[in-house]
């Protein structure tokens, strides 16, 4: 390396752009969350800190609760289903390519398209329930999407459908990269079938879990389009997530300071979950 500064120079543009457009904007938002901003940013500090108002709003608590419920189920089910599909496909089946494409294609669709398609399927009067009625089971009920307590699970269904194929691809790649020697040794020792997977293979899939987790968490944050297309935030306010809350207050309700405060809290929540997980992964990598 003749020029010792080249590496640093190369990465500088990214640092500058990300520094300004991500961390700079986050700082701007944190500042806004203490101001009187309504329609547009105002730089005058508010008498009553918007965070206090935030905690008094029932829709905020509801959004937070929904986020925990949604993320937990979404990430958990996507990981589970993704891994299951990867294991199934890894069994030397015929037609791996078509199966893989079928499971993977939902990721190509935008959240808006996914939400709209699933809104139709889950609608009792024209979708699944109606079809089962017409098949001769008139008492079948599946109206979760119209039920205030169950609608959030519909969002989970649509979201898991969209991304579990991608998780499957990540796990499939991980499975194929598992050390064959270790597997052969285990086979010699008599390990078989599910036992083999459980004790040998899955523990080696750590990196796949991490990558999947990052991608799933990223999608969970971005869920605004999906919720709006699928349920409109309803019934009532039942399916509000923080992304919906931030959008509503920042733009629709002309309460930018409150929206900024909720965005900051959302970031804090994400950091608490994501940073430790990613740090451990990075530490492993540098040791390797």
């Amino acid at each position, binding site marked *: *390396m003749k020029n010792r500064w*080249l*590496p*640093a120079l*190369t*990465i500088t*543009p*990214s*640092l500058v752009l*990300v520094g300004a*457009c*991500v*961390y*700079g*904007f986050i700082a*701007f938002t944190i500042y806004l969350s203490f101001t009187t901003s309504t329609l547009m940013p105002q730089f005058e500090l508010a008498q009553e800190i918007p965070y206090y108002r935030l905690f008094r709003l029932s829709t905020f608590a509801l959004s937070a609760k929904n986020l925990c419920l949604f993320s937990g189920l979404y990430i958990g089910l996507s990981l589970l289903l993704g891994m299951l599909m990867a294991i*199934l*496909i890894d069994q030397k089946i015929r037609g791996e*390519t078509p*199966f893989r*494409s*079928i499971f*993977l294609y*939902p*990721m190509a*669709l*935008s959240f*808006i398209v996914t939400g*709209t*398609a699933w809104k*139709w*399927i889950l609608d009792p009067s024209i*979708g699944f329930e*109606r*079809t089962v009625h*017409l098949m001769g089971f008139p008492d079948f009920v599946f109206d979760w999407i119209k039920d205030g307590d169950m609608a959030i699970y519909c969002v989970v269904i649509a979201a898991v*459908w969209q991304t579990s194929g991608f998780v499957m*691809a*990540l796990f*499939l*790649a991980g499975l*194929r*990269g598992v050390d064959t020697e270790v597997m052969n040794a285990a086979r010699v020792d008599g390990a078989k079938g599910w036992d083999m997977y459980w004790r040998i293979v899955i523990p080696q*899939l750590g*990196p796949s879990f991490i*990558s999947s987790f990052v991608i799933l*968490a990223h999608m969970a944050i*971005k869920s*605004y389009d999906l919720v709006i297309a699928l349920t409109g935030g309803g019934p009532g306010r039942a399916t509000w997530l923080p*992304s919906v809350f*931030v*959008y509503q207050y*920042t733009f629709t309700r002309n309460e*930018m300071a409150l*929206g900024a405060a909720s*965005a900051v809290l959302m*970031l804090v929540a994400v950091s608490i979950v*994501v*940073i430790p997980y990613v740090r451990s992964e990075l530490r492993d*990598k540098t040791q390797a």
Partner: protein
Amino acid sequence: MNRSANDRLQRVLLYAVLGFLALVFLLPIYVMVVNSIKPLEEIRGGNLISLPLNATIEPWLQAWSKAQIGVQPTGLRPYFMNSFLMVIPAVLFSTLIGSLNGYVLTQFKMRGATLIFGALLFSVFIPFQIVLIPMAKLLGELGLAGTVKGLILVHTVYGIGFGTLFFRNFYTAFPHELVKSARMDGAGFFVLYWRLLLPNSLPIIVVNVIWQFTNIWNDFLFGASFSDFSSYPLTVALNNLVSSSTGVKEYNVHFAGAFIAALPTLVVYVVSGKYFVRGLMAGSVKG
């Protein structure tokens, strides 16, 4: 005797489960396609799963070139170009920057490399709503407001995080001996990158291209906010087709339009599926 019967049963079960999952996964697209060739009365009266009685291609023609998008009945066709003009450069830049970052973070002893990587990685979690106003100000100052160039810049910046993630993990696993011997042969900074690493990165390039292409192609918020009448992308046009507040809702045209808009990304996914898995295998998942 028992064992082979057992194995056969397991195989049958395997295909049964896969088949069932495949049906569930195909359901929404089946619904979209089937209802996009039905005349409107059949959709209103009938149910979603049934096949059309009087199949018609008219909704597709409407969505492509005749449907009302704004004041003009142009269909979605004119907006494809705007989306391509925005997506292709952004994906190219994102791949270039991501690969350079990955290269620099893994092949050189850099102080704080882990911290830098962590900072770049964390940037993928920023909610886009808080970006809107400050970025609009920035674009205005740069004179890029309402232009395709502005959109390219925005998408490139927010693609740096994932791009760096993919390439950095890939290059971490790159055979160290190859790099060492190339260096001993006198390969400099750019030669090492351009002649050794990048050509051997095809799988992860595919992963990055797919990911960035999909995200940028499907973006709505930035497309609606940072464009003007001459540069707004396909997602905005699709939204105009599908979300009009009043007037008769032609659901068959909406479904046809949604499918047409999704075609490029679907093609990208299906065509490169094999490379995609290979790329993930070679890259982000090995320790």
